[in-house]
């Protein structure tokens, strides 16, 4: 047991206690949390800074509005409903089409209007929100993912999680929904996490439920060695989110849309630690490096260049 702990320390693996004590508590001012915990505010903030986000169709704030849901949704055949204060991807409903009065979910199931309305009122009651506070439900554009990632995904939209420390992207992974995760891109729900080489945007190994794998569990396709398009743009987008929120340590979730390019889905002030398993590397050495050099890195371009140069995994091998 101690040997294992020792080896993990030497690999520079970041544990939950250390992440809380030395990164989130130390670098993320409490007053900035609402900016990322409330997805509506994140969206507004991003728009004002000119960062692309999925278009907002509507917000439902009170129970009474759920009655007008059909009218509000009238024009759209596909959309996403999510809690504004959701955590861990809970409560997100993806509708891909319609069949008369029914809505088709991304997993193929049909939902009646009544069920949809109940889901929205569940969101409003705060069941999915952090701390159970009353919440708002957002209805937004459903991302049509880039066909370039088609070969490695299965149902739902793959997204790219980039950890940004003091404005420098330090580690990234692609999160692929699986049958088990019900179309959601969250690792603890059974999504697949694939490490990404910071220099080139090429996928490395994958982690599925704490195990290292190299094929997608549903399709059997290899998920290794896929090059993510527009990698530099993605890194810049992530790096700019630091100025947006002032959070020192955050996770930026980006999706690649077929028509609109990279869109920032959400920001996370307490990003998970599984990204280390996906990349088979500890976060600590990279975080130390950034802490030493971040004063010299002013512009977004400098920070991205630093990340691409320092955190190149492929060359190491």
């Amino acid at each position: 047991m101690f040997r294992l702990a020792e080896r993990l320390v030497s690999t520079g693996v970041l544990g939950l206690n250390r992440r809380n004590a030395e990164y989130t508590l130390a670098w993320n001012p409490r007053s900035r949390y609402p900016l990322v915990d409330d997805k509506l505010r994140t969206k507004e903030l991003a728009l004002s800074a000119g960062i692309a986000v999925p278009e907002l169709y509507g917000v439902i704030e009170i129970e009474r509005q759920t009655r007008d849901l059909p009218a509000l949704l009238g024009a759209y055949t596909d959309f996403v409903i999510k809690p504004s204060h959701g955590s861990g991807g809970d409560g997100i409903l993806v509708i891909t089409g319609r069949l008369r009065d029914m809505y088709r979910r991304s997993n193929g199931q049909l939902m009646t209007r009544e069920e949809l309305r109940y889901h929205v009122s569940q969101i409003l009651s705060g069941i999915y929100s952090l701390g159970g506070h009353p919440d708002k439900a957002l209805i937004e554009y459903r991302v049509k993912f880039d066909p370039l990632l088609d070969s490695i995904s299965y149902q739902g939209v793959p997204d790219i999680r980039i950890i940004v420390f003091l404005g420098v992207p330090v580690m990234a992974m692609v999160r692929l929904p699986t049958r088990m995760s019900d179309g959601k891109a969250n690792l603890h729900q059974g999504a697949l996490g694939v490490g990404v080489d910071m220099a080139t945007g090429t996928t490395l190994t994958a982690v599925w439920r704490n195990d290292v794998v190299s094929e997608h569990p549903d399709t059997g396709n290899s998920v290794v060695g896929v090059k993510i398009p527009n990698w530099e743009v993605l890194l810049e987008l992530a790096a700019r989110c630091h100025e947006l929120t002032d959070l020192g340590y955050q996770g930026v979730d980006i999706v690649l849309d077929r028509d609109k390019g990279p869109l920032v889905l959400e920001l996370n002030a307490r990003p998970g630690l599984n990204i280390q398993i996906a990349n088979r590397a500890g976060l600590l050495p990279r975080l130390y490096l950034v802490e030493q050099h971040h004063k010299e890195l002013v512009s977004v371009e400098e920070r991205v260049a630093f990340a691409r140069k320092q955190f190149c995994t492929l060359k190491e091998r």
Partner: protein
Amino acid sequence: MSRRHPYVWAVSLTAIGLGLFLYKVVLLGFPLTPGTISDIWTVETRVAFVARAEPVRVSMYILRGSQRFIVVSENFISQGYGVNSVPENDNQQGVWSIRKAKGSQTLYYRAVIRRVDTKEPPVRSAPPKAAPAGFEGAYLAAAESLIAEIQAQSADLDGLVGELFKRLNRPQPDENVALLLGGESSMSKKVDIGVRVLRHGRIPARVVHGIRVREYDRDVPLIQWVEAHDGARWRGYDPSTGAAGVPEDYLPWWRGDKPFVELTGANRLQVSMSVSLNEEEAIRAAMDRAKIASPGLLEFSLFSLPIQTQGVYRILLLVPLGAFLLVICRNVVGLKTFGTFMPVLIGLAFRETQLAWGIFLFGVVVSIGLSIRLYLERLKLLLVPRLAAVLFVVVLLMAALSVLTNKLGLQRGLSVALFPMVILTMTIERMSIVWEERGPSEAVQQGIGSLMVACVAYVIMTVDYIEYLVFVFPEMLLVLLAGILLLGRYSGFRLLELPRFKALAERKP
């Protein structure tokens, strides 16, 4: 700077805690272990009432001592009241009076008693004149035939009294007994009728009110006993069985039919009694030394509190200990639990229910509640009404469990009422959400995690020695607090994280 603060605090808290502890142990000689069981108890009666701005007079029976217990000392704690101790028949009465009082008042009577082991038979006494039984009309005839029947069947006093109370205690009493009891089945009514029937048969008899003296007890119930005179001495009988004899730990308080406390000039009377085994002589001696060495220290110690409150703190002081354990389980081991302090409260409830029963009852309530909650999911209710519905279900479940286990004769089942029900409700709600969102395995995992922490907390919190240590040396909690502060800065791995990141360790040998 602020990074160093926790360490500074931790060191100074440890220093203060250990310093006080060592001072008490080394210089004042407080014993580190609870000694042998002593035969000294402190008995306390608390009388509370609301005065109406009139002269107030409170008369209460006080201890006279008995064959087995002698009263070592007694005192009356009352601000501004005049106190008198007057004899009344076979009893002693304490009388508090004040010309004018308003608002809520609390009086204490505290006595120190010592048990003496005597094998001598009770003292002889002349038979008193039998008091009139006071039956009339149909009751007179019923009492007459009842005592005649019993006298015809029994040879001596023991047999007679035994038979009488057996009849009184039958679930389906015969006509005479039913008439006399008049539909009431309380023990005090049975005792009252029994004594009067005996008197009707010209046997001197009386009611004794008293308490059982055990280790630590709050809200001690009054227990009635019956005494009958056999011509030479008084003999005691258990009214619930009719058996002769008095239990070892029975402390008679007063005899006769009058109420314990009589109050004029006030209302809303509340009386409660508590008993505690005295901390043995060594602590007494240490405290006497402390009184001389540093008078302030004990003035503000837990021993200066009324016994009732001391009893509360014996338990309350264990809660921080449970919280400390919880911090270790969550932040060092990495167990997942429902709610932050829920396991500690459940562990505390286990103290009353015992472990096996506690786990069983907790499991039953939570699993039935959970299945009902998962059904409620289908009804599509809003959050707060749904939570309220679950609370209803939990309360009804607890009531049903108590009734059921009582019917089955399992006394322990009644203790389900001690579980904090709001906590149970929240547990069920959170568990069901986890169940829906993350799947049953995660929910069961967290449930088991919570139960494990509760069990560990229970085990630690039930060790008598730990209870003793924390109560006698509450300053040790400061040392624990220091530990908590340090754990608050612990940024190493959690034990359960190691297997999670195992894949990362394999790369570099």
